[in-house]
């Protein structure tokens, strides 16, 4: 390691330990690196500005954020909730099953796990806490576990970021997430079922038959969007960025015109909120632009690739090793940091070993979503704690069966690439 690279890492770690915002720490580390190297400090401005200006696909991020915020403000979650109560509410532990299904449907419109926990997650937690038989810890654990599905079923903000750093196709990544996302829902539902039978948890009250048509109609409207989005992106009719704008427009029309749940005042609030949260995410991306420039000019990814080549790892050994490293890093680091700083370092190695980049991306993102629910740095735990007031230690005490279920699924998609690649390939991905 060169001295200037050491200065960069030291500044970054120091800034983070001192509780400075991670995005600002990354920028400061970049500046310190250039000072130590004696290069033109204006390079930071150049890398960050050009990076933002030239990454058209990144514009999807604020638009997806907007779509999710509009849906949350516009009671779209409540409509989906009612719809799912009809489908799975009568199972034992019904509300928990409803929550998982709501997450699946909501994921088809939102690309963020945090939005999923803050919107539909909060709606179901409130319902569960009204009923005996659901402890706060259990309710919170189900919600954080099911929120991890959000960015796996398309659309997905992390997949857009991954596409940016890896060059893999956004459309193929989105399709690749469908089967793993549904499987995640499946293993979580089975886990709930086992716990519910063991504890003799209540079934949800039936929805009166005459209410079915109205509830089904209102709930079915949001479900139509994912099909339009995926079809549009994959057929090439629109870019992922335009798809994100369509998603936001769809949410606005639903919430404002169909459900009439938006006022101008709430809309203005939603715009401000979306601006702020887009900036928070993108600031980290901007910092990562420069760090990647520094790592690349220091030859870090190439050295890593050479080291792995020398170790003669097989594809599978590499993927398993990456999984272990990411799970550990995921306990202490933010998803965007891992995705934008660590993943690019591994891409040359993955290519060298012939790992499919779509498979690699989906595995890495599922892994990072698990990182969102592992302490001490688990964003989903923080958000649910802040919004629902459920203590984190209670969620952890109830959460381990779900964690184990998700880890087993991660192992399965690592071992069997076809679980990820089957759908994109059947739509023509990789067959030239």
């Amino acid at each position: 390691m060169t001295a200037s690279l050491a200065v960069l890492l030291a500044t970054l770690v120091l800034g983070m330990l001192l509780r400075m915002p991670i995005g600002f720490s990354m920028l400061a580390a970049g500046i310190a690196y250039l000072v130590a190297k004696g290069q033109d400090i204006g390079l930071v401005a150049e890398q960050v500005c050009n990076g933002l200006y030239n990454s058209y696909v990144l514009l999807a991020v604020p638009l997806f954020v907007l779509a999710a915020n509009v849906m949350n403000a516009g009671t779209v979650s409540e409509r989906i909730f009612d719809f799912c109560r009809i489908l799975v509410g009568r199972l034992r532990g019904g509300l928990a099953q409803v929550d998982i299904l709501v997450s699946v449907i909501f994921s088809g419109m939102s690309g963020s796990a945090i939005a999923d926990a803050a919107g539909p997650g909060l709606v179901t937690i409130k319902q569960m806490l009204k009923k005996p038989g659901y402890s706060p810890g259990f309710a919170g654990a189900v919600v954080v576990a099911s929120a991890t599905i959000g960015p796996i079923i398309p659309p997905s903000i992390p997949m857009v970021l991954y596409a940016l750093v890896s060059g893999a196709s956004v459309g193929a990544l989105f399709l690749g997430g469908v089967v793993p996302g549904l499987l995640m829902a499946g293993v979580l539902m089975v886990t709930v079922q086992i716990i519910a039978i063991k504890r003799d948890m209540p079934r949800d009250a039936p929805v009166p038959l005459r209410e079915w048509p109205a509830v089904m109609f209102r709930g079915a409207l949001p479900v139509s969007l994912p099909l339009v989005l995926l079809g549009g992106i994959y057929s090439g009719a629109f870019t992922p960025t335009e798809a994100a704008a369509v998603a936001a427009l769809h949410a606005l029309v639903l919430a404002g015109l169909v459900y009439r749940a938006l006022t101008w005042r709430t809309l203005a609030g939603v715009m401000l909120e979306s601006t702020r949260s887009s900036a928070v995410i993108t600031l980290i991306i901007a910092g990562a632009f420069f760090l990647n420039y520094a790592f690349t000019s220091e030859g870090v990814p190439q050295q890593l690739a050479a080291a792995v080549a020398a170790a003669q790892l097989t594809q599978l050994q590499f993927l398993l090793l990456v999984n272990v490293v990411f799970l550990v890093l995921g306990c202490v680091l933010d998803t965007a940091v891992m995705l934008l700083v660590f993943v690019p370092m591994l891409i040359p190695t993955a290519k060298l070993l012939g790992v499919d980049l779509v498979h690699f991306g989906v595995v890495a993102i599922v892994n990072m979503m698990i990182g969102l629910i592992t302490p001490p740095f688990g964003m989903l735990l923080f958000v649910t704690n802040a919004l629902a007031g459920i203590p984190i230690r209670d969620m952890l005490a109830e959460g381990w069966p779900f964690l184990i279920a998700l880890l087993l699924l991660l192992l399965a998609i690592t071992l069997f690439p076809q679980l990820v690649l089957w759908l994109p390939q059947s739509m023509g991905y990789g067959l030239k």
Partner: protein
Amino acid sequence: MLRWAQRTADAIGGTLFTAMFLVFLVQIAARFGFNRPLPWTDELAVVLYVWVILWAAAFMVPTREHVVFDLVWNVASRRIRRVMAIAGHLLIGGLAAWALPASWDYVHFMRREGTPVLGIPFMWVYLPFVLLLVALVARAVLGVRAAWRGEGLDGEVRG
């Protein structure tokens, strides 16, 4: 005074964000509705995007909304936190101040080049980066002053 300034900053950022969204809708309407893609929408959307992000990061997002790593902070005593806050602000603010002249040079230099379609000089596109650095320096000064007075050291204890 500060509240008024914050409201103005919010209004500007929110308007830029809304404009960016509307530009996209125009683009989609032109392409699918009228089958006549417009050449300038992509470019304007990207320019607005650069502004929205850097402007909001500089003037709209309060420190508590940023992603931070607070494991050390949460276990530290008040006295240690005070030292941490002052050191952290000096680190970030100091480096931002250091980078200001060179960054302005770069941004100012880019006035010679314009965006391909609209011909907006890149100086105006990239200007908010300089504003972000200025805001970082100002934040650091305010942050050091607050920490010196013992303000803002409680922090949210999670769990």
